[in-house]
């Protein structure tokens, strides 16, 4: 077994183990921390697949920013100790298991179907092979870059996959609008009056005492605080 195989084995065990722990923890904060371990180890997988750029972005965006978002949600909800460990109703758990297995089957299918890995391999250049990118429309210099390098990534995005790249900006625009509609509606009375909709309860509402500033957070007496030091 080559050294790379051993490393891959170790990081796979860590990734799967941390993922399993993330699902089974009672305290959501521990789940989030184990999920962060999984995401960090996936960055190591990207690095092994000779893509340092994706590895760094995995750490910065997923293990960094996205996990902060998860932690925010946990702190927004602020579960009381007696609420932890409550499980979803059985039909919901069965449905979740079916969906998870379905996604796993979809992801595993290309690996076990004989024709697919060969076809995928023919699309990607072999690792560590330098690829020549001609300049677009004869304006630039062109470049010869190693597979997986950040420059390779750039040439692929701004060359062959430029349409999906531009569509990403539309996707982000849609996400920004969605965030504003969902999260801002209940925060601003005037915005609610704008579209005249007060039918639905605000999805991310917290009690009025919390909707104020940090100052009110610090000074108001919290009926929900059940910390050990309280």
């Amino acid at each position, binding site marked *: 077994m080559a050294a790379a195989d051993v490393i891959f084995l170790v990081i796979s065990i860590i990734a799967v183990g941390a993922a399993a722990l993330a699902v089974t923890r009672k305290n959501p904060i521990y789940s989030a921390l184990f999920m962060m371990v999984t995401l960090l180890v996936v960055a190591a997988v990207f690095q092994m697949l000779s893509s340092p*750029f994706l590895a760094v*972005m995995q750490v910065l*965006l997923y293990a960094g*920013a996205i996990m*902060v*978002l998860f932690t*925010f*949600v946990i*702190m*927004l909800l*602020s579960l009381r100790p007696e609420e932890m460990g409550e499980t979803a109703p059985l039909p919901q758990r069965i449905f979740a298991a079916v969906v998870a297995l379905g996604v796993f089957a979809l992801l595993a299918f290309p690996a076990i179907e004989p024709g697919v890995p060969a076809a995928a391999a023919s699309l990607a250049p072999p690792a560590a092979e330098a690829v020549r990118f001609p*300049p*677009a*429309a*004869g*304006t*630039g*210099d*062109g*470049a010869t870059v190693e597979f997986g390098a*950040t*420059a390779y990534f*750039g*040439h692929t*995005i*701004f*060359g062959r996959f430029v349409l999906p*790249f*531009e569509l*990403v*900006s*539309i996707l*982000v*625009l849609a996400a*920004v*609008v969605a*965030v*504003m509609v969902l*999260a*801002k509606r*209940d*925060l*601003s009375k005037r*915005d609610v009056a704008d579209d005249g909709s007060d039918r639905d309860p605000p999805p*991310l*509402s*917290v009690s009025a005492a*919390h*909707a*104020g*500033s940090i100052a009110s*957070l610090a000074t108001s007496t*919290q009926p*929900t*605080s*059940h*910390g*050990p*030091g*309280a």
Partner: protein
Amino acid sequence: MESYAPLALFAVLLIVMPTSMIVLSRLLGPRRETEVKGDPYECGVPTWMGARNRFSVHFYLVAILFILFDLETVFLIPWAIVYKSIGAVALVEMGFFLAVLGLALVYVWRRRGLEWE
């Protein structure tokens, strides 16, 4: 792969230094536990309420908007690296991308998403 040697060295130092500091101070230093020393404290002030308070939902909006615009920055890095070799076309491609996201920023601004109210 040799280019990662400094990183590996850094990682080793990163683990060895704090571990040795904690272990050595635990082995060599005197430990006299008192009740006061065991108290949690914040900036020297005695604790007076629980640690598990809810966050204001405002933070969440800011965090999501940050991540979305963070994503935009991510694409600027490979773009900056390949800009010279691709040429003027790259400017147009990134220009459109940034224009759409600028539109998103204008929308957030006009809907007063950046205000803390």
